[in-house]
C-alpha cells in the first residue's frame, strides 16, 4: 500500500505547479489550465485522506469540486472567447483597460 505522504507530496507538487503556472504564464488558456491543475491537486489530497480514514465525505467533496470546476470551465471559456473577440489577444498583460 502506498503511504499517505506520497499522495500528499504529489498533491503538493501538482498544486505548486498550478500556482507557478498561474503566476508565470501569460496566455489566459494556460492560466485556466493551471487553475484546473490546482483544483486537481487538492482533489488528490481529498481522496487520499478519504481512503486513509475510510470517510466518504472527502470523496463526496471531490465530486462537488469537479462539478463546480466543470461549471467554471464553461463560464470561463465563454469569457475567454468574448475577451478574444474584443481584444484579439489572449495575453492577460494586454487586458488592462481598467489600469490607472
Amino acid at each position, binding site marked *: 500500500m502506498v503511504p499517505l505522504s506520497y499522495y500528499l507530496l504529489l498533491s503538493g507538487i501538482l498544486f505548486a505547479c498550478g*500556482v507557478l503556472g*498561474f*503566476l*508565470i504564464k*501569460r496566455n489566459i488558456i494556460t*492560466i485556466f489550465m493551471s487553475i484546473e491543475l490546482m483544483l486537481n491537486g487538492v482533489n488528490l489530497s481529498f481522496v487520499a485522506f478519504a481512503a486513509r480514514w475510510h470517510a466518504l465525505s472527502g470523496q463526496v467533496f471531490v465530486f462537488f469540486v469537479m462539478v463546480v470546476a466543470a461549471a467554471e470551465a464553461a463560464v470561463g471559456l465563454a469569457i475567454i472567447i468574448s475577451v478574444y473577440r474584443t481584444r484579439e489577444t489572449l495575453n*492577460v*498583460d494586454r*487586458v*488592462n*483597460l*481598467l*489600469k*490607472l
Partner: protein
Amino acid sequence: MTPNPYLWVIPILPLAGAAINGFFGRRSSKKAISTVALVFCGSAFAMALILAAGFSSASAPYYCNLAHWIRSGSFQVDFSFYLDQLSLVMLLVVTGVGFLIHIYSVGYMWDDDGYYRFMSYMNLFMFFMLTLVLAKNYLVMFIGWEGVGLASYLLIGYWFTQDSAAAAGKKAFIVNRIGDFGFLIALFLMIKHFGSLDFTQVFTAVQPLSPETAGAGLLTAIGLLLMVGAAGKSAQIPLYVWLPDAMEGPTPVSALIHAATMVTAGVYMVARSSVIFERAPMALMAVAIIGTLTALFAATIGIAQTDIKKVLAYSTISQLGYMFMACGVGAFSAGIFHLMTHAFFKGLLFLAAGSVIHGIGGEQDMRKMGGLRQYMPWTFLTMTIATFAIAGFPPFAGFFSKDEILWKAYSSEYGSWVFWLIGVITAFITSFYMFRLWFLTFFGDYRGGEVNDGAHQSANAHAAHDHSDHGHGHGPHESPWVMLGPLVVLAFLSLVGGWIGIGGRFEHFLAPVFQVPAFHEASATEYLAHGTAGEAAGTGTETLLMLISVAAAILGLLLAWTLYLRRPQLPARIADSLGALYRAVANKYYIDELYAVLFVKPLVDGSTTILWHGVDQGGIDAAVNNSADAARYVSDNVRHMQSGNLRSYAGWVAAGAAAVIAYMVWMGIR
C-alpha cells in the same frame, strides 16, 4: 381701552402697494405704478383721518389684537396694535407727510429707470413706519424699527451702481445696528424683570417703582439702553455719522425718511417710554445732555457745508437734538410737538431743495446757485416759509415748538439754564445757516450759468443720474405742479402747524400719555393744575426768554444777510483768518476720520488678519483642505497596488495564502 378691529388695516395698505409694485411694477406703465402707490398710501392717510375724526380722549387708547405670535409660558407677545394720543399724532404726521412726499416723488422720480422699485420701497417704508408707531408692544415696534432701517438702506442705496450710494447705505445700516443692539438689550431686560413687552403691562409694572434718584438701577439701565437705540435711529452723538451720508439717496427719500419720519422714531420711542424715563433721572439727564450737545454740534457743522442737502442733513440732526433735549428735561409733549412741526418744515425744506436741484439740472453745490428767486417763484415762496419756520420766527410753526422746548429746558424740574443757553445759541446758529442757504440759493446772481451747459458730463455723476431728464441744459426753471402742490400744502402746514400748541392745547391733548410723573403723589388733574399754576407764575420769564430766542433768530438772519448778500467777499476772508478752526468745521470736525481710525480700521484689520486669514483660512478652510490633501496623499501611494495586472494579484493571493499557512504551521508546532 377700546377695541378697534380695523387698526391693522392702516399698515397693511402700503404693504399691499409695495407688494403689487414690487412684483408687477417692472411690466406696468408708470401711470399704473403711480396710481397703485398713491392709492394705497393715500387710503392709509384717509383711514388715519377717519380714525382721528372718531378719536375721543375718553375712550382712548384703542387697541387691536391681530394674531398670536409668541406664547411661551406666561410670556406672551402678540401682533397687536395700539392707538393713543401719541400714536395718533405720529400716525397723522407719517401718513400725511408721507402721502405728500409720495405725490412729489411722482414728479421727481418720473424719468428714473427704477421708478417702480422706488415707489415700492417708499410704500414698504410706510408699512414699517406705521407698524412702528401703531405697535402695542416693544417687539412689534422693533419689527417696524428694523423695517424702516431696511427701507432706509434700500432707498439710500437706491442708485446702487454708484459706490458712494452703496457705501452710504451700508454705513447707515451698520451704524444703526449698534443702536439696535442697545435697544435689544433693553428689551431683554424688560422681559427678564417685567415678564412682558406689552406697553401697558410694562408701564403698569414700572409705575409703582420709585425713581432711581439715589443710584443707577434697572430702570436707568433700560433707559440708557433705549437711548442708545434712539441715538442710532435718530442720528444723535455719537451715532449721527450715517445721516449726512444718507443724502446720497434721492431727495424725496431724504425728505420722508431722513427728515420727517424715520429719524424721529427715536424721539417717539423715548416719549413712548416716558414712564420708564421719568423714574430714571440719570437716563433722562443723559438724554438731555446728548440732545443738547448734538443740537449745538451739528448746527456748527451746518455753517460750513456747501452742499444744500448736507446743510439740511446737519440741520435735521440738530433739530433732532432739540427734540431729545425736550424729552431729556421731561417735556415729552414739547419734543413731540417739535417732531410734528419739524416734519412739516424740514420735509418742506428738503422737497424745496429737491425742486431747486431739479430745476437747475442736478447741481447741489450752493456756490453754483443764486438768484433763483426769479426763476422758480413758488419754490422760493415755500422755501421762504420753511426757512422762517425753522429759524423760529413767529408766527411760523417752528417758533411755537422751539420756544416751548427752550422754555421747558429752562423751567422744568430736570431743566437748567445751561440747556436753555445752548439751545438759544443753537437757535442763532440755525437761523444763520438757514438764511445763509436761503440767500446763497435764491438771491444775488445766478452763478451756475457756465456749469449748466456742460454740467452733466463733468460735474457730478450723482447729480447727472439724479436728473438725467435735464440733459438739455437750458436755464433754471420751475418744477411741475405735481411737485409744487405738496410744497404748497407743507408750506401752509409750516405756517399754521404751530398754532395748535397755543395755550398748551397740544400738551393737554398728549397729557394722558405722559402720565403723572413719579415724584408727584398727586393725581393727574392736580398735576395739570399745578403745571398751569407754575406756568402762570413764570409768564414774565417765559416772555423774556421768548423775546431772547426771537432776537437770536433775527440776529442770525442779519448776520447771514451781511455776510452772504451785502458783502459776499467777507465769508472767505473770515474763513481764511480762522484757518484751522474753519477747516475743522468744514471737514465736520474729522469725526468720520476719527471713527475710521478708532473703530473701522481696527475692526477691518482685525477681521482681515485674525478672522479671515487666521480663523477662516487658517482654521476652518485648513481643516477641510488638509484632510482632503491627506486622503489624496495616502491614496496616491496606495493606488499602485491596483495595478490591473492579473498575475500580480495572483501573486498577492499566493503570498497571502503562504503567509497564512506559515502562520498556522508555526502556531501548530508551538
